[in-house]
Structure formats: structure tokens, C-alpha cells
């Protein structure tokens, strides 16, 4: 009988600190996930947690992990050459095939950038796959900014708006919540624009409403949910929202579905 809870061992090849509490771990792996899928990541004797895949190639996968609990604290202690244990990928990712030749807007708040980063890098490699890409990213403060180098690179090809909720003395960029910038966003053909919104629950809720006001169709909005999960495969019950298992039907949902997920 296959043991569905048995993880595989994956070597950490490098660790890239993003902020004081967010590190990107690059693992040797040939897993080829869908954009937006997640893994169950564990350290024996410490525990297991769901982590979204922030990027991948056929040689490695990247996990950007925030230090927020027992398991992630322990992961942050690891060094290159150490091992993480992974199983997955699980869930449904973003249906990028359906986004071809369209305008795409990606709005990400905080760690919400991790699950969509691989899509942005996909378009960065093949800009012709879509008509246009707008990126809106928001962080709490300048010291919370993730993937700074990559954001710089994206700016060369795409419209990127970076904002922080609260700036500091040295901050010269935009301040304010992402939602503030949606009304003025250049959207050419709203019927043909795909919007991806990922971030904290409140940010997603209000950002989606702003995009709807801009004439974006409900069926063109995609979100991704973060929930507690112990299994990732529809057994443990933690991620269930009424009739929906986030691990199975999500974590990526179309807005027509996500708006019905009542808690």
C-alpha cells in the first residue's frame, strides 16, 4: 500500500534571506508543480506545514518561508546541505493556459507574492505569452519587501507598482494599501483582463471589490487561500470551508466560487 504521508528527502542547495523573517530555500528537486500549488514540508520530530511553492525549474524548487511557528522556526535554523522532507505538490494551481494572449494584472500583498512569483517569472521568460502584465505589490513597510532583486528585474519589462503601508524616513516610493491604487490602474480592455489577487484575507476581499468596480468580470478574477492543513489531501478537515476543501478544490479559486466560501 502506498503511504500517502511518506515524504521524500530534499537537499537544501541555497538559502536566500529576503527579510529578517522570510528566507527563500532552494531545494534540489525535479517536482514540476502547477503555479500556485503547495507542498507539505516537514522536519522529523518537529512537524509538518503547508508551504506554497514560490518558484521552480526542472532542477530545483523554491520555498519562501516565514518564521512564524515551531516548524518554520526550525526550518530557519537549517543550512545548505541539510535536508527538508517534502510531499506533494497538492491542490489546484492557476489555469495559466486560459490566460494566454490576455491582459494580466497580478496584485499581491506581503507573503502573497510567493505563490504567484513563479507566474511572473514565467511571463518574464516568455513575455509574448500574454498581451500585457501589470504587477501591484504591497508590503507593510520597506523592511518587509520580498524578492527585491526580482521586482527590479520585472520593472524592465512590465508595469510594476510597489507600495508599502507605512514608509520610513528613507522611503521615497508609494505608500498606502494596494486597494488605493486599483482605481487609477491602466486597464485597457476590462472584459479581456485576468486579475490574480493573493494576500491576507481582508486585502483579497477589498482588492477584488475594487477590481469588480473597474469592470473586471467575476470569472476573470483568481485568488489563492491560505488555511491550516494537516494532511493536504482531503482527510484532516482543517482547511474545509463548508462544502469546500481548500487543499483539494483550492488553494486557487475563481472569484465566482471564492465569494461563496462563507466562514
Amino acid at each position: 500500500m502506498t503511504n500517502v504521508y511518506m515524504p521524500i528527502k530534499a537537499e537544501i542547495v541555497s538559502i536566500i534571506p529576503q527579510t529578517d523573517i522570510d528566507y527563500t530555500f532552494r531545494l534540489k528537486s525535479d517536482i514540476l508543480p502547477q503555479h500556485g500549488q503547495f507542498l507539505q514540508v516537514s522536519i522529523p520530530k518537529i512537524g509538518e506545514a503547508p508551504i506554497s511553492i514560490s518558484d521552480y525549474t526542472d532542477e530545483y524548487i523554491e520555498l519562501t518561508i516565514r518564521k512564524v511557528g515551531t516548524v518554520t522556526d526550525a526550518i530557519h535554523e537549517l543550512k545548505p546541505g541539510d535536508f527538508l522532507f517534502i510531499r506533494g505538490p497538492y491542490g489546484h494551481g492557476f489555469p495559466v493556459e486560459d490566460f494566454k494572449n490576455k491582459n494580466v494584472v497580478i496584485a499581491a500583498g506581503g507573503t502573497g507574492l510567493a505563490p504567484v512569483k513563479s507566474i511572473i517569472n514565467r511571463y518574464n521568460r516568455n513575455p509574448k505569452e500574454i498581451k500585457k502584465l501589470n504587477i501591484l505589490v504591497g508590503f507593510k513597510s520597506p523592511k518587509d519587501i520580498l524578492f527585491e532583486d526580482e521586482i527590479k528585474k520585472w520593472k524592465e519589462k512590465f508595469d510594476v507598482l510597489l507600495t508599502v503601508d507605512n514608509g520610513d524616513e528613507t522611503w521615497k516610493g508609494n505608500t498606502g494599501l494596494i486597494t488605493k491604487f486599483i482605481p487609477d490602474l491602466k486597464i485597457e480592455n476590462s472584459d479581456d483582463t485576468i486579475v490574480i489577487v493573493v494576500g491576507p484575507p481582508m486585502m483579497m476581499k477589498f482588492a477584488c471589490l475594487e477590481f469588480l468596480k473597474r469592470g473586471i468580470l467575476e470569472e476573470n478574477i483568481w485568488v489563492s487561500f491560505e488555511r491550516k492543513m494537516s494532511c493536504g489531501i482531503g482527510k484532516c478537515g482543517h482547511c474545509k470551508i463548508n462544502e469546500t476543501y481548500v487543499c483539494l478544490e483550492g488553494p486557487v479559486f475563481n472569484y465566482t466560487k471564492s465569494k461563496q466560501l462563507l466562514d
Partner: protein
Amino acid sequence: MGIELDVKSFDDALKILSKNYKIFAPVRLKGKGAFSDTDLVTYGEISSYKDIELNEKSRYSPKEVIYPITQTLFYFTEDEYKEPEIDDKGIIVFLRPCDANSYLKLDNIFLKNGPYEDNYYKRLRDKVKFFIIECTKGFSTCFCVSTGSNKFLDYDVFVRFDNDKITCDVKNDEFSYAFSGKEVEFIPEFIEKNEIEVKLPDIDKISQNLEYVFNHELWDEYTKRCIACGRCTVSCPTCSCFSMQDIFYKDNPKCGERRRVWASCMVDGFTDVAGGHSYRQKYGERMRFKVMHKIYDYKKRFGTTMCVGCGRCDDVCPEYISFIKIVSKVTDAVDRGESK
């Protein structure tokens, strides 16, 4: 056809069966109840007729036979994951129709939900042989007829306990060798009417009025009354949620294990995401989540009501909250909301 046995020959049968099977049945644990000098009726291993408790409903269901409260998934030695071995013996469970049906409900989650079968569940579940205890009277909080769980026909052996006269219908020939007694005419019976009848809501009507049902004021009462102790879910034969837990051994921290332990959607922490966010903080919201799972969304997913009507949740609630009453209120609200 049935076989009639006296206590002695029934005990002989158990003895023969126990060579290849572990045998579970409701048992009375003296002095182990919640209050001093009370007993706990629960499931345990038995070896003779006198071990079986037939007069009282068990507080806990037989789900722990196939889905233990704490189950080790892996033993760790340094960097290795090792799966624990299990007993070679089969499993015989003496249970009432409601509880037998609850195994089928658990099957939906562990074997059919999502793309994978849960191997830890399956390896125990595959061993199970159903020995149905005939139940024609039930207990004061039973409503299995309303939930359609009063019958279970796919049994291996059906047993009528009539004082010291025991009649068995041995449907599975595999077990014929163990039972020797007089052949008698025997038609197994199932309860046809409980003292309590509950009208379950029409799930299509709920689907059409989802927000109305979800935001209904009926749930508010439970924000005040429920204390989120989780007893209802622990006693429920169909509750299947769990959390993972890793530990290391104090005397040898290099070794340890990963376990799964029962979890409850009624208890704090169930939805906590790393970083502090949680959902359904109000106890009324948790009650709605639990009740809707039992009578609505599970049915939408699997085509059968999750609740089997055993009534244990009502028996164990320290705040005297009645699931039965809540279901009636939901049905009422749905019917009234619909006619508006």
C-alpha cells in the same frame, strides 16, 4: 436460517474466533466514568459474552477501533521515516446498525475524498468484520430512523441477544466453522421507529438559500451556550478530523515519532494559520459549521447524510445543547424561508 446458542457455546465461538481475530464490543469499565462511582461504557476487546455491555449506549463509538485517538504514522531514527507494523489478526466488531453505518461514512472521507486513499485507515478498515447487534428499541436520544441508519444489511454475522439465548445469522460462510448450535428460523430485525423523530432539511432548499441559513439568528444562541469543549465531536462516530503532531523521546531526543490525533472543529485552534489568523471564532459559527457538515454539505459531496442518529452528542454535552433541536430549527428555518 439462524443458529441458536447458549452462553457457553457462544463463548466457545468467541474463543475459536479469537485465534484469528481481535474482537471488540461495547464494554463497561467500572469506576471509569466522568463522575466518581460511575462507569464508562465504551469499546474494548472482549473474550466472552459477559464482557459485552448491552443495556447502555456506549459513550464513545467504535470508530477508535479503525481510527485510533492517537495513531503513530512514523517512527523517526535520525533522518529516517519508518512506518509502524500492525497486528496480523483480523478485527471483529460487535456494533449496532448506526455505528456500522458510521464506518461507511468514515470510508467516504478516508478512502474516497480527494485523489488518495488514507493507507493508515485502509489497513485497519480492510480487516473489519461486522457483527451486528440487533437493536429494536434503542435509547432515549436515538434517531437513526430519521437519518436512514437504522439498517445495516451487509453484515458478516447478525446477533440477537435475548437474555441468555443468543441467535446468530451467519451470513459470511467464513465464520460458520465457529458457530455450533441448533438451527432455527431467524429473521433479523431493525428498529423502525425511535422515540425521537427529526425532520432533516432538504439540501437543495439550503443550497438555494445558503446565505439565509448561514446568517440565521438561530446560531447566535450557541455563541452564548456552547463552551467549545469538543465532547460532541469526540463522541461522534463520524467525526474524522485530525492534527499532526511530532514528538521526540525525552530519553533519546534523536528518535521520535509523527502521530495524528483527533481534532475538533468546535475547539480553539482548529483553523489557526501560522502568523495568528483564525476563522470561525464565534462558537455559534463553529456550531453552524459542524451541524451543516453533518446534515448538509457532506451529503452534497457524497450523497448520504453524515449523521447516523446515534444521539451521543446530545448525551455528552455538558451544556445540554441538543443537536436534535438544532437540526429541527434548521429544517424549520429552511422551510419557512423557502415559503416566503
